[in-house]
């Protein structure tokens, strides 16, 4: 089985700083990490490869430094990695990003399954996975919490929704987005880390994947950010309650009754 796992390098959010002048995120010097959800996608890809044989390929789009996240994927067990990196990709929204990734998946060729994390924690859109499926014209299953059965022809999956979950079956080729419930990601092995250091990761440009330049970057993106602003502040004065636990409880319950909450 040939599996592609899509990963993204995201800023470590605990470092988030807003430039007071420009109101934009200060990205310089910010630590970058593998998107937390993507570790589960990598793990699921590696597990399926162990079961069926074949190959798992990690795919990412981003600046050159995103190679670090691909190396991390290699250390976690993927067989090889590909980075899409070129100025022409810059400024892509989820439409253009999923277009570029879909072209790269076609270029890799013979892929049965694409696995993505549920969403990236910087954009939080959850749009790229279904976007890839749409560009490829493949089946999709999102919010996958469990692979119940994996066969040569297709998968039986448990998908989460707001009411519970459903069980669905689909045929390859398909695109999945996975939740944290799906597995417990492994830790890099020494062998994996050494492999990651040695790995020659190819960097592909739009020409390499035969992409239509009009569908990439800012020009290829239907959406555009026109302005940014800090979020509305919480106007609160914190009321502090101290004293014995019983006193605290009495004051709190009285306060909540006054507010009409209890």
């Amino acid at each position, binding site marked *: 089985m040939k599996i592609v796992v899509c990963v993204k390098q995201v800023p470590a959010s605990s470092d988030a700083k807003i430039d007071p002048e420009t109101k934009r995120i200060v990205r310089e010097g910010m630590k970058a990490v593998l998107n937390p959800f993507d570790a589960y996608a990598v793990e699921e890809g590696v597990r399926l490869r162990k079961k069926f044989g074949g190959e798992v390929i990690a795919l990412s789009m981003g600046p050159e430094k995103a190679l670090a996240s691909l190396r991390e994927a290699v250390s976690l067990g993927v067989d090889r990695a590909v980075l899409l990196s070129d100025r022409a990709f810059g400024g892509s929204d989820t439409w253009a990003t999923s277009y570029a990734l879909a072209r790269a998946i076609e270029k890799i060729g013979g892929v049965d399954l694409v696995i993505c994390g549920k969403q990236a924690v910087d954009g939080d859109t959850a749009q790229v996975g279904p976007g890839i*499926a749409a560009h490829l014209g493949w089946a999709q299953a999102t919010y996958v919490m469990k692979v119940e059965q994996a066969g040569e022809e297709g998968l039986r999956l448990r998908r989460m*929704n707001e009411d519970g979950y459903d069980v669905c079956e689909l045929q390859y080729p398909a695109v999945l987005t996975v939740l944290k419930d799906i597995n417990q990601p492994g830790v890099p092995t020494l062998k994996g880390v050494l492999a990651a250091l040695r790995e020659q990761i190819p960097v592909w440009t739009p020409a390499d994947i035969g992409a239509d330049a009009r569908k990439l970057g800012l020009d290829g993106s239907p*959406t555009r950010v026109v302005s940014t602003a800090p979020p509305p502040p919480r106007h609160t004065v914190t*009321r502090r309650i101290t004293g014995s*636990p019983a006193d605290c409880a009495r004051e709190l319950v009285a306060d909540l009754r006054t507010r009409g909450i209890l």
Partner: protein
Amino acid sequence: MIVTSREEKDRYRNVWALAEVLSGQVQPVTHELLGAARALADAGGQEVWAVLLGAGTASQAVGLFAWGADKVLLVDDPRLDGFQDELEAGALTRLIHKHRPDILLGAATARGRALMPRVAVMAVCGLTADCTGLSIDPQTGDLLQTRPAFGGNIMATIRSAGHRPQLATVRPRVMKALEEDRARTGQIIRENLEESDSPVVKRVVEVFQDKESVVNLGHAQIIVSGGRGVKSAKGFDLLRALADKVGGAVGASRAAIDAGWISYAHQIGQTGQTVQSKVYIACGISGQIQHLVGMQSSDTIIAIDKDPDTPMMQLADIAIVGDLFEVIPEIIREIDKV
């Protein structure tokens, strides 16, 4: 579709709201989408269309007029039983080409977040996720879509000037529904599902309603949430007792999940659920930014912690300085008194 002039844009009219159907039932977020759609439509002299896709859902179409719909675009077909992303996206794309809406709003739910991106790609249009503000730019007629980005640290306003329709999703309980008005009527437009709507089809084998595995924190008015300070799985029993007492749900920070004290379904924050409860009681949660972005828009935040200086204790409306294992039993006792 790509549009290059105001004239072309003006050929796309009306605001569509995609009804959220779960287990065959129209969900309340649909009413909120219709409320938002009504405001946008009224600003531009357009109509509100509810789009209802499902199997055996026709009887619920007429109820949508009461919540602000002028028309209901109905596809009722047994093949739409269960969630068929591919088929629904194909049908919706075909209907978009046929009726040319200006705007399509969907719910930022498991279903909406699967369907809307697929439609956006197929119909070649922009999609903005999790909008908290929507308005029409009077100059251009474009939809201005405001959403939190970067974990809520920044609000971005997004426009899709060169494409129609303009697609946006909205999380449940963000937009206001109108008052239900049963005197309102409208027109139902029936459309068929077509064989060509999707070349690939999945089989939905079974649907489970499972309140245990899916903790729907989004619906909870009161959430009692625990972090590192709860110390153990057993510690969460105390939080459950308080939650039961006030009719609330139990949430947790990532630290508690990672420690294995409670399941991921309870996680609130950047990689868990986002909640906007009436009351959020944070017990032993220090308040890292990843957690705060998932709960800070709750109406009233109460923090209980021994350490008075944590970010959560600073953010809270009410901060109780004390040991949660002593304070919570007293709170339960105090509520019982009356």
